[in-house]
């Protein structure tokens, strides 16, 4: 059974115009050294939420009536978390997180919850959850432990250059349309800020391909209105060292295979 609760502490966004991002409670709150208290510890996705909040703040500064904002919802994806209703809402209030809604669902029905809430991006630390959501047509990205040390004043989104689908390729599968429209919206948000001092940075990373792939990706993204800030072309170099310098919050990818890597 799925239930959705609004967070009355936070002003609700216009759900049709905002970019709905769902993050699992497991990623946001740390339950490992659980002492059973009222408030959870801080999880790996904290800097991410703060960065999303920062983008909203700056967007509203530029234009107080702005409706293209991030609409963040927290979602539980298993029975255990589903039971922790008051602790989750309590912790959210305690930390003053800009979360507009809570979705309490279980393992079986969380994808239903994602679809019902028009989630445009689902973020989780669990690869299986990401794959399941993706298979159900929801754009998903995997969060990893490195996220805890990512910046909180700037949202850094990595786009995979190897998987940017060219305009002339076969029709995009429904599930992946999400990636294109999400990146387009990111592009629109990015345009509201100047070159320097932007709260949002779009980073293109070509892991396998060389300059041809990189050039194609830059051109394709530009045609979607997405201006890329940084571009890294690895052409097969081991990604670890470079990604750890990059410190991006998550990777956006047009194809499901990214999640399987």
């Amino acid at each position: 059974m799925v239930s959705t609760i609004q967070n009355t502490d936070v002003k609700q966004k216009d759900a049709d115009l905002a970019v709905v991002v769902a993050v699992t409670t497991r990623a946001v709150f740390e339950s490992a050294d659980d002492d059973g208290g009222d408030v959870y510890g801080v999880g790996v996705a904290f800097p991410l939420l703060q960065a999303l909040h920062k983008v909203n703040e700056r967007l509203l500064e530029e234009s107080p009536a702005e409706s293209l904002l991030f609409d963040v919802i927290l979602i539980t994806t298993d029975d255990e978390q589903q039971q922790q209703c008051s602790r989750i809402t309590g912790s959210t209030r305690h930390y003053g997180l800009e979360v507009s809604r809570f979705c309490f669902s279980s393992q079986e029905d969380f994808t239903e919850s994602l679809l019902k809430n028009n989630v445009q991006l689902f973020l989780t630390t669990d690869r299986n959850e990401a794959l399941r959501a993706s298979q159900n047509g929801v754009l998903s990205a995997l969060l990893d432990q490195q996220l805890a040390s990512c910046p909180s004043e700037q949202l850094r989104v990595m786009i995979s250059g190897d998987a940017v689908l060219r305009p002339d390729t076969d029709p995009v599968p429904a599930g992946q349309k999400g990636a294109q429209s999400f990146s387009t919206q990111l592009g629109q948000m990015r345009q509201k800020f100047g070159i320097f001092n932007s709260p949002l940075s779009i980073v293109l990373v070509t892991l396998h391909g060389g300059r041809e792939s990189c050039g194609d990706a830059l051109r394709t993204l530009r045609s979607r209105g997405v201006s890329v800030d940084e571009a890294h072309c690895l052409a097969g170099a081991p990604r670890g060292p470079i990604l750890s310098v990059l410190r991006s919050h998550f990777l956006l990818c047009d194809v499901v295979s990214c999640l399987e890597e």
Partner: protein
Amino acid sequence: MVKMSLDPVQVMSGQVKELKVAPSSNGESRGSWEAKEEFDQDHLGLTTKPKPVTGRRARKVEGGVFFPKPENAVTVAVSSRVLFRTEREQKVFEQKGVEEYLRYQIEHETEPFAPGPAFPFVKALEAVNTRLRELYPQSEELFDIVLVTYNHAHVGIRLINTINHHNLFIERFCMTGGSSPIGYLKAWHTNLYLSADADKVREALAEGIAAATMFMPEKLTEVSETQLRVAFDGDAVLFSDESERIFKAHGLDKFFEHERDNEDILLDHGPLKGFLEALGKLQKKFYAKGQRLDCPIRTYLVTARSAASSGIRALKTLRAWGLEIDEALFLAGAPKGPMLEKIRPHIYFDDQMFHVEGAAEMGTVAAHVPYGIAQKYTKQKTSVGK
């Protein structure tokens, strides 16, 4: 000023007599510098058939390692301002700001940049790679060139178009969009970083990465397209600046005395020692296939030290480090420009702007290594040699 009686002496590696090496060597001690033993007759020819290179440029080498792992390759990171000529664009940036600069770049996206000071060097690296791939098709021990730039990715398309236009073999980039490139240099296992920005170069040196600032000379003498030639100054480039400190503080006589007294004590290493070492490793791969005489890499030491005295310590040190240098030129204070003009290196590394400028005046691409005591004396232009 002490006038040296010796003319610049060219010392071929084969002619230096057996030198004593101090017990406190900090490098591997090798045999004498006399001629190497006879080639192993069995390995004079190639042991593997070279892979055929088809078309404009073989993009995929079948079965071969195409993109080497950075830690296995000799990684050279070049900035866009030294690989290409971007003076006009720089002016737009300085005078009109970043937004106008990026607009200008995008407007001129299909116009390739002209070659910059590092261009011939990079072309020569590619020539060496071609020869290495012929001899060792599976090996990752190659030069790997990474374009590392402060630029925003907006400029990326123009850079890629330019690389295509000049038929360069650069597949790896790092466009940091304004963030410091230093962290990425480490992540790329950079062996040498070339930039137009002295501050970045200093930062890199501080992190232990060989780096130098490059400038565009007024005229450019023609350099070889088939043999990579790299020339190094000695003190504060290959070696530490310890001797230079003595010279700057106490003068020439004290310097000579110090060098004589410490002849058997090895000099400490300088920022470019590692790069010379990397070049030496690649050279040995050619020697192993019987290509010593035809080696597409040649290295030079061009130092103000003099052969009969202070130069000895330099040679002993190199030898103790197990580093061969093809030609050592001891100028005993004579200007370096004319000698470099004869050598025609693709790049010459020196810690003193005075020499860098002197070399550039005669058409040599010289790169400044902002390391050591000489940086405190940049205002003074002295002609006193060592």
